[in-house]
């Protein structure tokens, strides 16, 4: 298996996901299967192939440095789970 439980734990932390013991086992298994399938790519020699990040060769798209209306603060905060003093409230940052 390509991915063991420890790797799942490490990746889950990077992705800020809480995973249960059962899920760790399951993910380790499923992700390994998918990555095994991805091994197929190694059949191809891609040494001299440039990677494709964009499907279309578009470049140099800019906007002018012109001010547009911002959102009303009421709308900014309308979906906030918690807010105070016109700001978003979050729990303690350092545990």
């Amino acid at each position, binding site marked *: 298996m390509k991915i063991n439980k420890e790797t799942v734990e490490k990746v889950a932390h990077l992705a800020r996901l809480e995973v249960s013991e059962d899920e760790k086992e399951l993910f380790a298994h499923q992700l390994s299967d998918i990555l095994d399938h991805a091994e197929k790519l190694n059949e191809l020699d891609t040494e001299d192939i440039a990677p494709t990040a964009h499907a279309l060769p578009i470049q140099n798209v800019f906007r002018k*440095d012109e001010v*547009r209306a911002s959102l009303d603060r009421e709308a900014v905060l309308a979906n906030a789970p918690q807010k105070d003093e016109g700001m978003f*409230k979050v*729990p303690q940052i350092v*545990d």
Partner: protein
Amino acid sequence: MLDGYEMTVGLEIHVQLDTDTKIFCGCKNEFGAEPNHHTCPICLGLPGTLPVLNEKAVEYIVKAGLALNCEINTFSKFDRKNYFYADLPKAYQISQFDLPFCEDGHVMIQLEDETEMKIGITRIHLEEDAGKLNHAGEGIASSDSSLVDYNRVGTPLIEIVSEPDIHSPEQAIAYLKKIKSILEYIGVSDCDMSQGSMRADVNISVAPTGSDELGTRTELKNMNSFKAIEKALKYEPKRQIKVLESGGEIIQGTLTWDDEAGKTIPMRSKEEAHDYRYFPEPDLVPVIVEQEWVDGIEDSLPELPDARQKRYVEELGIPEYDAMVITADREMADFFEAVVKEHNDAKAISNWIMGDFSRLLNEESITIAEVKFKPADLAQMLKLMDEGTISSKIAKTVFEEMFATGKNPDTIVEEKGLKQISDTSELEKIIDQVIADNQSALEDYRGGNKNVFGFFIGQTMKATRGKANPGMVNKILKEKLEG
């Protein structure tokens, strides 16, 4: 300084660009607004929104790159730097990983011993700033919640990364000041450290002198005052050496500078391995910076501090040190040149600017832009001195008055009756009176005590409230005392 060791400093300087709008949306780029007033779906990273690059930000980073002697990359692209933090609405920062706009630059710095030194610049890349956290209570650690203001999110930011060429606090500060000076010159940022528009991450390591390898480094993030950086750079290498000498190991990590205690302390947060998972930003397309564009920007660059300094020394004949100090601040140099245009004694002008002018600016803590009088007024004051209308001593008074009120020197001289007395008969009358009032001193003088000559000068000046032409007083007194 550091017995047997050498310190190496790396600086990552973050500078906010002074565009009208943010880097990827049309919100105002402005410091000091009410919380979350300059935000929109795009900079808040609401689901479905997309960034569009502000052309001005590209122009500004290219400008900065040229002014800092960088190569401008024809092909640049943006990448996502992924990490979670409450001030980062998309949980990734749009930045540049392997293809920044500028690479391989340098600046020259001058040290107190008048030596010059070249500091390399590895790269300059463009990215977006994050928001701001406000902590309730005593600080980040003790408060049970924080408040997030996203006004600053999306402010265009350039990061200037130095080569490991810096080995002393003095070099570091000279480098920082030079960068600040150049960026102010070209008008891409106000570099106001108190408002966070210029801040630096400082990497510090020590290694035995002569060693080829750098030691393990520690990092101080978001330093926003020269003084604090200087103090930290004096403290941290000593701490590291102490650890090494006692057989310990330097732990790579982030420290904070406690200015009150005057020492570095390790960050309390759990140190975790950073894995930013950079990958090409699919929502932005590559930027091709054509040579023509670069040329146009290069043409728009003003004369930079080094060139100006050289010109002042070579063409205006002012001392190297004066030229350096004056050119470090563009406004100061512009002011100086405006006076030079009206008056031909550059040395005298530089003396005034380096002397009383700088002193008063400091005392009142105001900027050149806030100065009340005009460059032409200073030129006029110097002209009054040349013509003998005022003495250099009176000029000091006139200058202070100009600084305080913005009145022109002619008016000041007129109103305060400060015109120099250069009329021979008038001066003779006054001097006669002074001599008559001080007979015993006269006797002393004539008895061989030439030191009392100064006393007579003083008395004459006192009698004229400083307005007497000193040269003439000298001459007339001599004649009269010798009898």
